[in-house]
């Protein structure tokens, strides 16, 4: 059905935007306008700010990059020197001053006087610093000794002095004294002597490190305990 309004214009109902439409358009404009405004704000505000911040930082980066490269190059050079020094330390750490050890041994032997405490002399001396992985040894000192006395206590006196001397700082404790009496030589004084073996095993390198003053450096306790548990044998065979 076609509806025709025949009323004159002045009586006709005035044409106006329907309220629903108005509300819809307003809502649409408001939402889209807000979105557009928010976009504009992020695009020209936040994004620009972040971009400029990034640009500043990139400039900074570019400025410090050569310095960082310089630093890294220095580090590389330093690391090479470090490695070299480390190798030197490794090489020198294992060295034992045999002058010191032999001198200390001579001191102890001479401390016995002319036989009041002991009169000891040796037939030989064999020193070896080769490490044995099988029996966890770090080297040894071996000698065949003689005590110019009929009293075996003199051998004990000597070994006791040796154990408490600076000589034993680098060695494990020598084994308890043992030995055998030698045949009598009437032409010499003393005529009767005892033969005894002397054998001492070196301590692990970390336990015999010395400072520039020659004194032993403190040892890591955990390492020491471990080393004690793996203590190489000390002592010698009966002649």
């Amino acid at each position, binding site marked *: 059905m076609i509806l025709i309004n025949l009323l004159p214009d002045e009586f006709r109902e005035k044409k106006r935007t329907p309220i629903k439409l108005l509300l*819809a358009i307003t809502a*649409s404009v408001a*939402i*889209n306008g807000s*979105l557009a405004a928010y*976009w504009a704000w*992020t695009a020209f505000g*936040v*994004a620009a700010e*972040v*971009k400029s*911040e*990034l640009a500043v*930082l990139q400039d900074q980066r570019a400025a*410090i990059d050569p*310095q960082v490269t*310089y630093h890294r*190059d*220095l580090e*590389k*050079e*330093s690391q*090479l*020197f*470090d*490695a*070299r*020094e480390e190798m*030197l330390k490794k*090489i*020198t750490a294992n*060295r034992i*001053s*045999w*002058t010191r050890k*032999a*001198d200390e041994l*001579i001191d102890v*032997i*001479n401390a016995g*006087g*002319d036989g009041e405490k002991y009169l*000891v*002399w*040796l*037939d*030989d*001396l*064999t*020193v*070896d*610093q*080769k490490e044995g992985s099988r029996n966890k040894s770090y080297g040894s000192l071996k000698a065949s000794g*003689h005590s110019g006395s009929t009293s075996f206590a003199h051998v004990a006196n000597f070994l006791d002095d040796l154990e408490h001397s600076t000589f034993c700082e680098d060695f494990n404790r020598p084994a308890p004294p043992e030995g055998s009496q030698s045949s009598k030589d009437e*032409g*010499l*004084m*003393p005529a009767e002597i005892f033969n005894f073996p002397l054998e001492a095993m070196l301590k692990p390198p970390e336990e015999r490190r010395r400072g*520039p003053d*020659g004194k032993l450096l403190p040892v890591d306790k955990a390492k020491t305990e471990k080393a004690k548990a793996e203590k190489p044998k000390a002592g010698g065979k009966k002649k």
Partner: protein
Amino acid sequence: MNTEKKRWFVFGGSSLCLAAGLGTLLYFQHEGIEQRRAEVATLQKSIEEDKKLLQQTPELVKKVIIQRETDVVVKEILSDEKDVTDLARTLNKFSQESGFNLSSVKDGTRSAKKSKEDFERVSYTLAFDADAFQLLTFLNKIESHKRFMSVVAFKLQAASRNEYTKDALPRHRVTLDLETYVYAPTGNATEVKIDHYDKKKELLISEISKRASELRVPYYEYRGQRGRRDPWIDPRVPVDGGEHLPIEEQIALVDGLIEKADEIQKVWDEAKQADNLIKTMKLRADLEQKLALLEEEIRRVDAAGLLVFVPALRRFDKNVVEVVASVREQMNKGDGGAGPSTALLRETAEAMERHVESQEYELALAAYATIEARLGLADQDPLKEPLVKTLRELKHLADTVLAFEKIEIKIGGVALYEDRPPVALINGQAYSEGELLGEELILHNIRTDQIEFAFRGLILARPLEARP
């Protein structure tokens, strides 16, 4: 669908499309911003880290300067190829300075260098004969050498007792394994240019020297024999050696005498090279004094049999007696037939006087015997003649006393009376003062504690034995 609805539909659709478009734009915008922010954060973090790192640059520069400067020490400690070649010469020099010669030097194995290591190990095996203290001196020279060397093994076989009771000094057989390292850097660090290097280095001088001393390998300071006996020498003495000094004292005594003999040799060498007569005369006078004193000591050591420890005795013979005898012989040869010098005569006379004062009459005669043969020449020199006379008087005194001591005189007792001459019971007979006991012996004076005799122009006394 009516137009109104279509309009609504179109309007709604386009609004939604617009909103969706704007939303999408916002989403990507936001994503972009987040991404940039993340970039900023990362960059900022990295810049912060780098700034922190760069704060360490001055310290690193210092470290590198110190390392560069101390690398010289590393190179000094570990030999380069050339130094390894020189090592044989160095070892030879060390052995000579220690008082022996190397009997063999074997170049041992050279370990293959591990790729990352800057050092290659080189080993040597040396063999030589030396006493314990020569060995220690040698070891010390090796261990204290600026180039790093390490003794990894050595074997000493003591000289047998039969060997050192002969004329030679005891020498033990020693073989020694030695290790050293050749410095051959695998990677050469590119040296970074450091601005104002020299200036910075100067400011770090103390740290460089401290670090260098830390890097240097510490060594033991060996102080020599110090009167100690060689423990590889059998210290037992022959049973017929009688009472003797402790071995340490014998060694110390010989050491002291060797020092004096060396001093004499030095003065004699100086005297030979002196460029003017006055200096020569002064040195020879000094030498005569020193020689006379040392000869006196030698006589005392010999007479008392102080040395029974064979090595000490050998050293005494070789380094004291032989040196003194050689210097004396050279001096005698060099006097050009003029006889003993005034200084020699004076020193000999003084030595004889000291022996006489110490009642060492035989030693006084021994001192006289050293110049007796040449006194005839000195006799003709008016300046020397009084000294010769003194020497002869001292000899006469020593001879007379020794001859008197040999005369058997058993004093039974003395009798002293008032107003009567005293009487002494000698060899079972009674004698008064002034009576002759033998051809040359006259009873001179009888006292309560001793009897004095006149013998060959001297008054000599024999004490009375104390009675319980």
